[in-house]
Structure formats: C-alpha cells, structure tokens
C-alpha cells in the first residue's frame, strides 16, 4: 500500500544524518541550523581582536584547571625542601611552595604556568585593543550600547581577575602588590579600615587571604566572566556584526562569507593559532620567575618592583600624585592615595562606560547603525579617544619611572615632575592634533572624490605647461568615500523643539547645543553632486 504525501519524508542514511535526525526529533535543531549554519559574517582584520580575547580566555580556563590540580591555596607555613636548592630550608607559605613545585617538579607545570600568565596578558591586552577598535569605529552606537556595557564590565573583571591571580603564588612581588592594595583600601574614608580587616581577616597579611583570593580567582570572577562572554556573543550573533561601508554594503544588509564552512575554519583555525602562539611564548619566553623573587616577607622588597602591565596606570598615578593629606576632627583623609587610586580611575572608567550614551545625547541620533565610522569622519570622538590614550599612557609610563630613570640615566624626581605636567598637557595636545589630522584626512578624501587619484603620469601641453593626469575614482570608491554622515550642530530650537521649556531643562538644552557645537561646529563637508559635476566639467584638476 502506498499513500503519496505532499511533503516527502527524508530518510537519513549516513551516521551523521541519523544522529542529527535523532536530535532534531527531540530538540528541533533543524530550525536553528537552517537559520544559522550559513549565517554571513563580514570580513576585516580588526574583527578578530574580540576573537583573541575569547580564545585567550578559553586557554586560561584550560591551563588554569591544570594548575588547580597542583596548587595549594594556603598561607600555612612550611619549610622548603624541594628541588630548587637556592631556597632550601627557607620558611614559606604552602601557596609559594606549591608554585615552586609546579615550576620545577611537575612535568609541563612550568609550561602551563607560563601559558596561563601569557594568556592573561594577551586577554587583557586583547580587551583593551578590541575596546579601542569598537570606540574609534563607533561600533558602540545604537543598537549595541548594551553590549558595550557588557564588554566594559568584562574589562573591569579581567583587571580584577588578573590581579587576584597574580597575587596567588605569594611571592615577594605579588605580596608587595597586595600590601599596596591594602594601603589603598585603608585610605577609603569611613569604611576603609573595616573593609581591610574583613578582607584580610584582621591585620595584614593575616592567614586567610590566599584561600579567599583563590575562590575569587577560580570560581567567582571566572564564572561571571564566562556568563558575560556568553551574553556578549549571543548579542553579537543576534544583532549581527557591523561592517565597513563599501559597494553593496548597506545599513540593511550584511555582506561576507558564510559561517559554515568559511568562518568555522577561519575562526576555529584562529583559536589554534592563538593557542599555538601562546604555547610558544610559554615554552620560550620566561615570565614571572617567582623563584627569583623569593617568598613574601612583608619587611623585604626589591628595587624596580613592577606589576603586570595592566596595573601600570594605577601604579603610575600613585607615584605621580603630590603628597596631600587632610587631618581634621580626628580623622585622616589620604588624598594622596584616594585621588590616584580611587577617584581618577573611577572617573576614567565611568566615562568609558557611559560614552555611548553621552554621544547619543550630543548627536541626538536615534537611528540604528550597522555601518562603521572611519575614525577620521568623527574627528571629535577620535580626538577624545586619543586624549584618553595619552592620559592613560603617561600614567602607565610613570608607573615605571624608576626603570626609566635607571635605563636613561635620569633623575626619578625629574621624570615624575615631567609626567605631572604631561598628564594635563598631553591629552589636550593629543586632542588638538588628532582633530587636525582627521580634518586633513577628510580633506584628502574630498580631493580624491572631486579630482581623482594622482596617476603619476605627467603630460606637457602644447603651451609647454606640465601637469599630472588624475584618474577619476571608480564608482565603488566614490560611494565608499561619501557614505558617511556629516553631522551638524543642533540649534537650541532643535534641542528643545518647543517654546515653553522650563528653566532647568533649558539650561540642559543650552549645554547640549554647546556640546554639539564642540563636536560638529568645525567640519569638512562632503563633496556635493554639484561640486562633483563642476570638477568633472573643468577637467579633473
């Protein structure tokens, strides 16, 4: 008996086909696969920066799990009798002794430690560069502001996680870092002393810190990071990736190559490339040789103590601050610590977190943006970013003022004073210079559109005049160079768009109008069609 039905049943024959059919009958995965297997992702080298962060995090999880099998998170004192003879007979914490054991007695242990440390540096560095990419291309604009916030939170957590991990081996350098952290906690008004006693379980260094940090480092923070990375990626997937302007690329499409097979191979392969690169670093380049530092003893220190690079800015700010302290009504307010360690980073990080919302307020732009900005086309935003980088960079360099002093034979006082000035002057200069450069680049784009590219061919006219032939741009390039918006400052009426505005709102409106003038008051206009036609008819010069 045969009954013909309109939709014929597909009977899988291969093993893979049978397996997917089994799963589909229980989970309905074909629907998701239909939509996503051939999902299109755009291609650009800068889109791999986020991948670097994701992969280094996976490497951190893998190498970290290995390390937990051998690490003893305890401050209990033991006398070392292991195979690293220079420390033979020395009293140290179990944490430090087990780190020595991992480094010298567990085969592959040192490799895993070094992979873990290098991967942590790549992770934080990757986040910083990825964030700068997002910032300078305007990828944080609507609808991606929330993902910016998730990414920002991941950045903060990565710093916290890095510091916690750095502190676990309980060597002289990491203990010194913890001591500085305790000094900073003590400076917090009103609750600082209590926080320090709760955190360290009494006086510094106490006996409970390493096990507590261990839980924070291997469970609490990585758990949150993992959850947030998942949310971050789901949003990237759901909102679809941004792309650069170009022929055929619009705000309503995404042009690129399919997930299967191209991005599976490229992104999957890139994971192994990152892992391989970090494994080579771990095998060939020594990092954090804790046996050279010795166990932590609070009364000892080495000259040239340096934290990992991502703490350098905070360290530099601490070193730079003048020694202001207020003593009044029986209380002490340590501005010399509070300002560089709490207030300035607080302002910097808050500014970073809210920037997308600030810019949306300034531009009054409520559209969805899926086409990236070229940094030159948003000169003020780009200049703000550069000013931030300069500010951070000066602080970071000052974090190594002692090393700069010894390497370049300068006095540490001079370097500190120069940095104290530069941290104010540098960002202003960087802001100004960046805007000039952006305007210059925009003008060059404009010239290219109107007059074409220099061909390098010189002709001589019958009158004897030499001139270079300019070849007009292909239409794709014309489109690409004129695809951006040129924002205009909002007038007060545009900001308020009604007459009877109450006074406090009016003040805010005036502020907003001023902010848009600051952003867009000075600008390079795109060539108009009219200008283009005139340029053509006057003969490409």
């Amino acid at each position, binding site marked *: 008996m045969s009954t013909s039905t309109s939709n014929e049943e597909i009977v899988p024959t291969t093993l893979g086909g049978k397996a997917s059919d089994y799963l589909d009958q229980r989970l309905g995965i074909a629907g998701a696969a239909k939509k996503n297997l051939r999902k299109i992702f755009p291609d650009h080298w800068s889109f791999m920066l986020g991948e670097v962060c994701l992969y280094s995090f996976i490497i951190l999880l893998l190498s970290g799990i290995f390390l937990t099998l051998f690490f003893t998170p305890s401050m209990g004192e033991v006398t070392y009798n292991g195979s690293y003879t220079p420390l033979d007979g020395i009293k140290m914490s179990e944490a430090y002794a087990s780190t020595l054991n991992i480094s010298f007695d567990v085969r592959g242990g040192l490799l895993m430690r070094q992979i873990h440390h290098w991967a942590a540096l790549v992770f934080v560095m990757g986040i910083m560069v990825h964030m700068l990419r997002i910032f300078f291309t305007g990828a944080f604009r609507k609808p991606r502001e929330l993902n910016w916030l998730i990414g920002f939170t991941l950045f903060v957590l990565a710093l916290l996680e890095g510091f916690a991990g750095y502190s676990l081996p309980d060597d002289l350098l990491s203990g010194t870092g913890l001591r500085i952290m305790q000094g900073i906690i003590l400076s917090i008004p009103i609750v600082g002393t209590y926080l320090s006693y709760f955190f360290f379980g009494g006086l510094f260094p106490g006996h409970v810190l390493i096990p507590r940090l261990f839980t924070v480092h291997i469970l609490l923070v990585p758990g949150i990071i993992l959850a947030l990375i998942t949310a971050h990626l789901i949003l990237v997937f759901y909102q679809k990736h941004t792309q650069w302007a170009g022929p055929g690329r619009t705000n309503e499409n995404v042009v690129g190559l399919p997930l299967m097979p191209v991005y599976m191979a490229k992104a999957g392969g890139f994971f192994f490339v990152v*892992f391989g690169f970090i494994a080579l670093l771990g095998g060939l380049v020594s990092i954090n040789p804790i046996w050279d530092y010795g166990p932590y003893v609070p009364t000892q220190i080495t000259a040239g103590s340096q934290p990992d690079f991502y703490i350098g800015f905070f360290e530099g700010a601490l070193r730079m601050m003048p020694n202001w302290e207020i003593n009044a009504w029986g209380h002490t307010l340590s501005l010399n610590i509070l300002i560089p360690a709490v207030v300035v980073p607080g302002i910097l990080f808050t500014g970073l977190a809210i920037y997308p919302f600030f810019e949306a307020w300034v531009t009054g732009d409520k559209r969805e943006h899926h086409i990236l900005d070229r940094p030159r086309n948003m000169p003020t935003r780009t200049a703000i970013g550069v000013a931030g980088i300069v500010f951070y960079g000066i602080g970071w360099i000052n974090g190594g003022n002692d090393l700069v002093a010894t390497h370049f034979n300068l006095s540490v006082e001079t370097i500190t004073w120069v940095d104290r000035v530069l941290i104010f002057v540098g960002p202003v200069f960087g802001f100004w210079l960046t805007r000039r450069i952006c305007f210059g680049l925009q003008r060059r784009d404009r010239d290219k559109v109107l007059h074409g590219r220099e061909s390098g061919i010189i002709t001589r006219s019958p009158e004897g005049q030499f001139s270079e032939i300019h070849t007009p741009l292909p239409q794709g390039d014309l489109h690409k160079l004129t695809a951006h918006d040129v924002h205009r400052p909002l007038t007060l009426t545009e900001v308020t768009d009604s007459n009877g505005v109450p006074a406090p709102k009016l003040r805010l409106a005036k502020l907003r109008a001023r902010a848009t003038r600051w952003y867009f008051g000075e600008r390079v206009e795109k060539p108009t069609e009219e200008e283009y036609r005139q340029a053509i008819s006057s003969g490409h010069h």
Partner: protein
Amino acid sequence: MSGDMTHDEGHGSVAVEQEHGHGVVAENPFADPGLPEHQPRLTDIDEKVARKSERIVAGLFILSALATIAFMVCYTEVPNNTATIVDFFPIGAISASNFALGLTLGVALFSMGAGAIYWARTLMTDVELPQERHLLESTPEDKAVAAAEFQQGLEDSAWKQRPLIRRTLIGAMAVLPLPALWILRDLGPLPGTTQRQTAWTAGELIINDNSISLDGTQGSGIKPEDLQVGTLVSASPAAVLTAGDNAVNMMTMSAILLVRMNPADIKSQQEIDWGYEGIVAFSKICTHVGCPVQLYEQQTHHMLCPCHQSTFDLSDNGRVVFGPAARSLPQLPITVNADGYLVAKAGFDQPVGPSFWERG
C-alpha cells in the same frame, strides 16, 4: 584653511542644494553601484594551484600530528630538572623540558590552525554574499500586543487593586538581601585600636633581622659598637621570636631600621635625643601605602621606598623630601639596657604605616 571647511557658532549653516534644470549627469554620482563582481583566485581557475594548496594544508595537518606525538615523547624523554637547560640567543637559559614541551605543543597547535585558515582562504568559497538585516525594533502592532498582554497579566494579579500586597512585597524584598551582608560579619575582627599598636614598649630588645634563625625563634640583639657610622640594619622587636603564627603580622607593623650617623649630621635635637650616640631607629613601613622602605643613600641620609619613590630624610626626623607619602617616618626612641644591648626607650608616639580614616 581651504574653503571646504565649515566653521559656525551654532547658527546651523544650511547646505545649499542647487537644482539643475539642464541635466549633466542625471543620476547620483555617489550612488551605491552594488556588490562588485567576484574576482576568481588562482585556486578557483587552476586545478594545479588548487592541488598545491591542498598539499600545503595536508602538510600542515601532518606537521601538527607529528608535533603532538613529539610532545608526548618529550614529556617522558626530556629530563625535568634544574640542571638540564637550553641556552641560546636571544632567549637565554631555559629549562630543557619546558622548552621542548612548549615548542612541540606550540607547533602542534599553530600548524593545525594555520592549515585550517589556509584551507579557508584558498580552497573554500570567497564569494561574498549579502544577507538581509532587519531592524531590531518590533513593529508597532507587536509592541501594542505585548503591552496589552502585560497589562492583562497585571490585572489578573490584582497588582494595582491590592496596594497592601504590593507595598508589603516591595518592602519585604528590599530587606531580604540584607542577611547576605550580615552573614559576612565574621570575615574578620573589628579593627579596634590594633591598627595603632606595635610590639614596641619600653625596654623591648631590638633584634637584628639578619641574625634571626630560619625557624624564626632565635635571634640576637645589637650592641652600639656593632654599628659603624653609615651602617643600616633591619631590625625587629624580640617579641617576634616568640610570636609563633603571629610573627609575620607583628613584623609587618613593627619592623624598624637602625642607622648610625655622625651626630653632627643630624639636624633635629629631638632626633638626637631619641637616638643613642648617633644611632637612630625609624619605622621601616612607608607612610604612603605600607611597602618597606629600603634604599638608603649614605651621604644624603635619604631613604627611598622602592614602590612609589617616597623619599625620607633620616637626618631630619624622617621628613618627606619627595614623593607621594604625606607623613614623616615615625622615629622609635632607643637606648641601651644593662647588658649593653639596644632597646626601645618607649613605644612609637604615633601609628606606623599607611594612613587610615580613624588615624587623626
């Protein structure tokens, strides 16, 4: 500045759009021409090139497998001890086991990735495809339906008509998380006055840190004649020798430095009085964030903290001469006891180490 630059102060310049009656170029010259035609790669048109690519990819995968096997061999065959090292420029000396394992693992992973990427770039499609992107915002109809559903849910719960339930629920929910804070109370003791106390009291013997035995229970005192002018010694109170588990905490608060100067170099009378024949004792804990100060300049009597470069003048009451520290290093008054050993004459007259809110 060229004429294309626009400068205005809020008057909102109007971009002049001129209409042209007689057409020169009718359509918009900047219009999107659409996706450019695909340019085939050599591997798309020449099977010989494609086969070469295939061999390269396969070669990388084979290299990866070989390196993986080499890794497992190196694990057992390369000895893991401090004597077996490799040393070559520019990497320097490194454990041979670490070198071999890192190299083989790195090659195994890297060539696996390089093979996959090379495959994708040369043999998989590079025809760019467009996919539609829908704006994320829902349609007004969907929004209206969602709002209505929500409203219905609200009404079904009587949330609005029963303010008593609403308010008590909000109130109860607001206090419910508080135990999460309460239960953390036993993380540590309250500070009390411990942040002000050190182990120094009148008559406390000063122990040379270098003389403390490895187990921390033996140590010897210092006689004035042991110290030459210009000598610097790290020292602790004798109490740390019997403090057991508490020794590290005690040293953190009570560590001191002894320096012997020519009494004529000392600028402050009080400092001379609190010292003994030019030997003065200062807290070793920096008043900035608590690192031990350690770098001593014999000629200037400047003491530098290596952490943040706070510099203290030990010949002038430990005054801050540079850096972020706000307060002088506290001086410990000392004298000698009946046996001729240096002891504390009294405790510190102020809390040592970093500032804290209650310090005053």
